[in-house]
């Protein structure tokens, strides 16, 4: 019974947050306006005739909220997965160089093709490439030990960070550079349904894969030797976890740029709330990550008429909240 209500909360919370997000924004819309607009689903009616309220709800707030939920969920869940896999509660999606690889790929695409459209596949490919490089460096000593993998990730991250700086250096300061910088900062501002469809594929595959394999993440966090002795095909399972987590992260980075902090804070909040069992932690983090990013995005939209990049807000909101939680739980047990 307890478990049923937990899962009900896990499912309902993001839906409530999405609805909340539909009701809030710079443009003043009352609850009845929102409900009216929601009543006219544009799929089977001509959407041009409904006017501005309809556009705001269906073209601006809803895609944004959905995308925010997906990105938040992806970053949080892959954070949990990487933490479990590397047996280190302080790693996040950034480890293995996924974010910096994807960031570099996107910047390179903007530099080469002068359009942000090419950034999507490039971010994905380079995010994957970063993981492969980290993995190969980790294999130098013919082991897949976590420490070597993390070290490989650190090396790859810094190489890609340097390459990114170089791309920024040679980019056109008037046209390309602002695009690259804003892309890297992360924004859901231009969310469209097509983004949800395109980037949704890698994100969904990644998250569903991690949900499916979440029990094995528990066992993998016992370390390679014990996991194998417990019957896990460690290299296969680790490969799947890394692949899925990378896919989810790179997909998220594709649509929203690099948003830091979520992959670290949300898993910890989850650990504090319901413990470390990934069977429950992964769905809960998914839900928390989705809610957190929707709420942060609401803030980013209503504080000013301008767009505040999400990375700034996730850090400003997530940081103090994290400190508060650490204090409340005395830091000892997550």
């Amino acid at each position, binding site marked *: 019974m307890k478990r049923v209500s937990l899962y009900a909360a896990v499912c309902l919370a993001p839906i409530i947050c999405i609805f909340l997000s539909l009701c809030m924004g710079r443009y003043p819309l009352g609850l009845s306006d929102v409900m009216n607009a929601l009543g006219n689903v544009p799929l089977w009616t001509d959407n041009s005739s409904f006017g501005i309220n309809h556009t705001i709800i269906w073209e601006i707030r809803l895609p944004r909220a959905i995308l925010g939920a997906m990105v938040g969920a992806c970053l949080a869940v892959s954070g949990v997965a990487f933490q479990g896999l590397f047996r280190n509660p302080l790693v996040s999606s950034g480890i293995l160089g996924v974010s910096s690889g994807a960031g570099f790929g996107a910047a390179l695409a903007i530099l080469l093709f002068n359009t942000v459209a090419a950034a999507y596949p490039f971010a994905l490919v380079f995010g994957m490439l970063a993981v492969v490089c980290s993995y190969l460096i980790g294999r130098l000593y013919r082991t897949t030990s976590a420490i070597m993998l993390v070290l490989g990730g650190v090396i790859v991250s810094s190489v890609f960070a340097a390459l990114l700086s170089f791309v920024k250096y040679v980019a056109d300061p008037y046209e390309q550079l602002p695009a690259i910088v804003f892309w890297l900062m992360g924004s859901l501002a231009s969310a469209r349904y097509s983004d949800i469809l395109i980037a949704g594929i890698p994100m969904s595959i990644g998250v569903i894969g991690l949900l499916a394999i979440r*029990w094995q993440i*528990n*066992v993998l966090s016992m*370390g390679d*030797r014990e996991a*194998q*002795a*417990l*019957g*896990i095909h460690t290299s296969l399972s680790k490969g799947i976890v890394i692949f899925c987590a990378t896919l989810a992260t790179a997909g998220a980075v594709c649509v929203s740029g690099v948003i830091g902090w979520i992959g670290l804070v949300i898993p910890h909040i989850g650990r504090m709330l319901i413990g470390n069992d990934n069977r429950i932690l992964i769905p809960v983090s998914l839900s928390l990550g989705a809610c957190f990013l929707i709420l942060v995005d609401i803030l980013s939209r209503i504080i000013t008429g301008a767009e505040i990049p999400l990375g700034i807000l996730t850090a400003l909101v997530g940081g103090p909240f994290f400190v508060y939680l650490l204090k409340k739980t005395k830091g000892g047990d997550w």
Partner: protein
Amino acid sequence: MSLVTIRDASFSYETKQIFSRISFSVEKGEIFCLIGPNGCGKTTLLDCVLGFHHFHSGKFQLMGKDAAGFRPGRVARLIAYVPQIHERTFPYLVREIVTMGRSAHLGFFESPSRKDRTMAEEALERIGIRHLSSCPYTQLSGGELQLVMIARALVQETPVIIMDEPTAHLDFRYELVIMEVITELVKERGLSVIMATHFPNHAFYFQSKQIQTSIALFNNGRFLAAGEPESIMDENSLRELYGIHADIISLTDADGKTMKHIIPVSTIKDMDA
């Protein structure tokens, strides 16, 4: 049919020979003690049996079947493992740790069911630490942790358990608690245990409990001797194995049973001379 059969097995890292032409077998209800000084290759031999490494040559059978190509899941349904050192990272609850022992019996994307969780609780009950079930296992003492690891091995429902120095780092009381738990499990369930240990006395202990016990003295990559503890453990073999002078005494416990005990006396300074 022996549960574990190893004939003329060898293993080396790169060019460094770790052991060669090792042979032994383990029967149902038997405790096989692997005794030898630090760095003699005990852990590597256990790793090969567990499938972490592969023997380079020789015969390796589990339940009479050639086990060289067994997948981890198949090995894990035959052999459970109690590690020497368990590095604790996340504060999982004790029952969550024990439930992980069910992994080998689950499908690839399957999570443990209610039945698996019940089994974990029963194993904790059996080991006598059910009260710790909801504790974060990071808060346990070394001895309690070792009991949890044994409980985890128990729910794996394997005929064989491999223990790598299960009483290292434990105080007298917990050393005995662990020994007693092992004794009971072997007697009750007919489990077989392969155990690496620094304490030759453990072999005498098990023998005194009427458990079929064999012992192998392992040094420099080979077995110096193997067989019944009574017959092969004496002052000479200890001198050869550890380079020490030792006395073997007999003592009688409250029930009137006798138990041999080795007392290390002094090191031998001029072994080579």
